[in-house]
């Protein structure tokens, strides 16, 4: 068993995808610099050089359109952005063009581009450097949205994204970059549209995405000590979403918590809640609880971040509430340590 860092898994996926398909290339701001976007593109640059891994001007909208054009001409571009926030400058090309290409032009041509962007939280990165905007993309027909929560998925899902014929938004979470997990050495793909049961349980279902999968896992361990057995589902891809895995679990447990790194309003947490309410209402023993961000931009001060971000504690409290268990809002006995507090980059 070989364990590798999340950033290394991304790097390996890029290199192997480029090895097996000469149409694949990488472009983005700083992809060929020595840091190689937190170590994700440096190896590919070393191996394939500037013809296939190259820097771009800070023209996010045009460069996205250029990616679409190259894809139509038969290439397989992977576009890399160090922050998801920068994609807001490219929304015309992503939403009005890439997402609709196949459908709007009668199905004859595809625009197979992968737009990889990094999302994050904490460490004072504030309103324009640490958003999680996956729900915004997931709202658009024609886009796929991928959010790996571990090294294995980072590699497998990235390879699937590159091989997929649709435009894919691939969102890597910064807090995972140094986390290690088992990753096969060979080229393999993890299917888009399939969630995974991260931990089995019968009392309450916790559906989580990206960094909240880790919070859910910590919460599940704490809940076990309180005699509550939580089932943790990692969505892995937000779009297509794995409805079956969610519904099967909710039908089993009758209780649902949805934990997301984005905002509650009009978000993935709301979508999953609606799915359960529409299709598994008769199984629900208690109201659904969403653990996601308030309708407030991201603050910078760590004092405010501490209140702003949701985590394992909030999930534990939600589970107690659903179970009618003791403890209620009591947080004092919950000590989880924090990914953020130990975080030393990459920024």
């Amino acid at each position: 068993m070989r364990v590798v860092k999340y950033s290394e898994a991304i790097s390996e996926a890029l290199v192997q995808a480029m090895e097996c398909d000469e149409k694949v290339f990488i472009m983005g701001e700083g992809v060929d610099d020595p840091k190689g976007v937190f170590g994700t593109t440096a190896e590919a640059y070393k191996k394939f050089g500037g013809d296939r891994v190259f820097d771009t001007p800070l023209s996010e909208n045009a460069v996205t359109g250029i990616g679409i054009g190259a894809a139509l001409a038969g290439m397989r571009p992977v576009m890399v952005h160090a922050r998801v926030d920068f994609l807001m400058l490219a929304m015309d090309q992503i939403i009005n063009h890439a997402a609709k290409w196949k459908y709007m032009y009668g199905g004859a041509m595809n625009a197979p581009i992968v737009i990889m962007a990094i999302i994050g939280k904490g460490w004072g990165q504030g309103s324009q450097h640490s958003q999680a905007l996956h729900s915004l993309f997931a709202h658009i027909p024609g886009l796929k949205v991928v959010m790996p929560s571990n090294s294995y998925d980072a590699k497998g899902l990235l390879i699937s994204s590159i091989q997929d014929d649709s435009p894919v938004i691939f969102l890597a979470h910064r807090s995972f970059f140094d986390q290690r997990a088992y990753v096969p050495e060979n080229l393999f793909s993890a299917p888009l549209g399939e969630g995974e049961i991260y931990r089995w349980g019968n009392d309450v279902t916790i559906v989580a995405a990206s960094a909240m999968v880790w919070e859910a896992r910590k919460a599940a361990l704490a809940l076990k000590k309180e005699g509550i057995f939580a089932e943790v589902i990692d969505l892995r891809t937000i779009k297509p979403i794995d409805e079956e895995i969610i519904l099967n679990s909710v039908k089993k447990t009758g209780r649902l918590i949805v934990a997301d790194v984005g905002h509650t309003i009009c978000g993935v947490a709301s979508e999953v809640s609606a799915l359960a309410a529409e299709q598994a209402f008769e199984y629900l023993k208690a109201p659904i609880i969403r653990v996601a961000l308030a309708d407030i931009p991201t603050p910078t001060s760590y004092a405010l971040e501490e209140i702003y971000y949701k985590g394992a504690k909030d999930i534990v409290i939600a589970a107690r509430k659903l179970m009618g268990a003791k403890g209620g809002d009591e947080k004092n006995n919950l000590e989880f340590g924090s990914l953020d507090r130990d975080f030393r980059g990459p920024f």
Partner: protein
Amino acid sequence: MQILESTLKKLYFEMLRIRMISERIAELYAEQEMKCPTHFSIGQEAVAVGVAAHLKKEDWTFASHRSHAHYLAKGGDLKEMIAELYNRKTGCAKGRGGSQHLTAPDAGMIAASAIVGGTIPIAVGAAMGFKMRGEKRVAVAFFGDAACEEGVFYESMNFAALKKLPVIFVCENNFYAAQSHISARQAITTNIYLRGEIFSIPGFRVKGNDVRAVYSQTEKAVKKARMGEGPTLMECETYRLLEHVGPNDDFSLGYRTEEEVETWGDQCPIKNAENLLKQILSEYTRKGAKEIFMFDDKIEIKKIIFQREIEEAVEFAKQSLLPDEKDLISDVY
């Protein structure tokens, strides 16, 4: 300006065909059976025709919401276009695109976008794709004067120049964005063709209603692109004779005068080409040949052929099925 008489004739008939198609669509539009916003190219045909004359099938063009002429000039199928306007399953976009999203991949007219400036970077990207694959193909972006107000226009030119890509930027300056005159939108209205210079992209102002001028300038631009010497910007001054969207005139709106439209109407690209051809042919006639009479006959014959082709296409469209639920849900991914 040198152009072969035979070439000029070909361009003339191509423009005539597009004009006849457009005028027939304008007539039929009133029946309210074509349900999609339609922006007519009437008056602007010379740009599409003059540029396309130098392109091969495997060269790609991209256009804007006003794209009927570009689609037809590049060889897009007439039946599929009319069927698309009639919202039919047999349309070029299966009834999902309408007039604003014409596409003919096999003919190399890849896409028209309803977002102003939207296809400019995509044309640049296609050119990059060609270059990366070692193919000697050329991409052309057609757009209007208002697209030159979009940031993406400058971003795209910078990138095309940076990578020396085989792309030609063709601005059809018709002076209006809907009802807004260029003077209300641009600080300097006379220098669109110069705006690539800051990126070292050579620019040319072309009489857009003179198909010879468009043809000659394009010849140089295509040659340059194919030789790997990078992009060119062409500003073709032209004029839209009908309203912004729809088949009627729009004098009642008061944003432009009837005189202005008439002045440009006298500069109609098709009339211009016809006059020029007759001038050339009258030279022969003076020498005792009968070319000019034969040409008039040929125009009449061509008109009959075009008419028949158009009616067949309209018939095809009207007979075609409307798309169904299967067409609604397929091709999203």
